[in-house]
């Protein structure tokens, strides 16, 4: 087979990779905000849950999480009489977003805490409620700070999608393995695949940069 014949199946796989990346990045961002803000909550229960979530998913390997969700969770579900046999797509997206969400939560927490204390003091002096101070003062300043690390996490997440091939999801890495199974032409296939991932990462980085400019518009206002 000529290398051009590899393109069709590889592009199909790349499309799956793109979808996985988009879904899990969005879900991961939601988790990141929920638990990042949760970790700063004065309510100890919310705080404990957030800390637990963050530590567990940052503290274990993504592949372990993925295998656990795919292989072990159904067994655990059976034990309590629940049907937890997740389809590969769900298990994949869930593992990816739970993992990236835990890292993102630390970014969110860090960025909120990095908002200068004097901003909270100004808010308090003007009699804002803590909630108004968080959503009106702290978050709008923290979000632009989060964007560069979020950009890195999004690329990390794109790369991590390759692991879902190990639970038989037809992403780019899976297609590559399947092709190699047929042709044993490892050099061409893996070179192509490396460049395809690189290309997707560059596009993703560019999108995150645009997003960063958008959420930090006020910083760029000039005279």
């Amino acid at each position: 087979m000529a290398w051009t014949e590899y393109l069709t199946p590889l592009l199909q796989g790349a499309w799956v990779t793109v979808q996985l990346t988009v879904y899990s990045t969005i879900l991961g961002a939601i988790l990141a905000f929920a638990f990042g803000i949760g970790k700063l909550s004065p309510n100890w229960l919310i705080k404990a849950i957030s800390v637990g979530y963050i530590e567990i998913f940052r503290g274990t390997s993504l592949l372990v999480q993925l295998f656990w969700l795919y292989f072990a969770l159904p067994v655990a579900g059976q034990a309590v009489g629940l049907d937890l046999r997740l389809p590969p797509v769900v298990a994949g997206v869930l593992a990816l977003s739970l993992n990236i969400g835990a890292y993102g939560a630390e970014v969110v927490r860090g960025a909120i805490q990095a908002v200068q204390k004097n901003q909270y003091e100004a808010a308090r002096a003007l009699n804002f409620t803590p909630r108004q101070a968080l959503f009106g003062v702290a978050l709008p300043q923290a979000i632009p700070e989060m964007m560069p690390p979020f950009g890195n996490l999004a690329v990390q997440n794109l790369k991590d999608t390759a692991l879902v091939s190990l639970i038989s999801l037809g992403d780019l890495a899976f297609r590559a393995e399947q092709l190699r199974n047929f042709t044993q032409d490892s050099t061409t296939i893996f070179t192509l695949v490396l460049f395809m991932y690189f290309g997707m990462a560059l596009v993703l980085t560019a999108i995150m940069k645009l997003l960063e400019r958008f959420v930090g518009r006020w910083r760029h206002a000039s005279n």
Partner: protein
Amino acid sequence: MTDPIIKFDKVGKSYGSLKVLDGLDFEVKRGEKVTIIGPSGSGKSTVLRVLMTLETINDGVVYVGNEPLWHEQRSGALVPAGEEHLRKMRRQLGMVFQQFNLFPHMTVRRNIAEAPVKVLGLSRQDANQRAEELLEMVGLADQAHKYPHQLSGGQQQRVGIARALAMRPKVMLFDEPTSALDPELVGEVLNVIARLASEHDLTMLLVTHEMRFAREVSDRVCFFDKGQMKEQGTPDELFTAPREQRTRDFLKAVLNG
């Protein structure tokens, strides 16, 4: 006008073993303009921050308008106040910070109008109008739509003053409002404060190192050292004939510059 609007009654405050306020007694009368001076670390900022409820106290009672600031009267006894009470008390005070502390993501107008909308419940329109009047007053009518980082330090601090005034406080607190400014920009801020002092019957409490200005604008100057008020008097008394040795030393060191 003889009723004290602010009163510190044997107030103590410590960080660990460091006593920052040490049994402080201190009063400000309604409409009075008082300047606090003193060496670094003497507790000047702490007095303002306690009043603005940014720091708690460990001992004693602070009164604002005859009501305890940090305590509530409950079944006769004074108990530590809840957030509700603090919010009510805070309404009477406005603060201008050394580092301006403007909200960098809001336009100048929004910086001023945000609290009136969110806290006082004004309509956005009314709040904007109030903001524009205040900007007019501090000489920045044409800067309403800029962001803080587009302004010079002196302009930012004038916005800071307008922002505090927008809440119509009874007492204004200024914590070294010009010490983060380039020397050339100090004047424009002091001018605004001087106008405020002369044209309004606001009570004003000002911490500053600008001795000449303190002399011009204040009714009374208080010298702080080690968390206590060591000496007070009219500007003329204190600057020309300080009674305490510590005060003399301090004034000598500072005025030498």
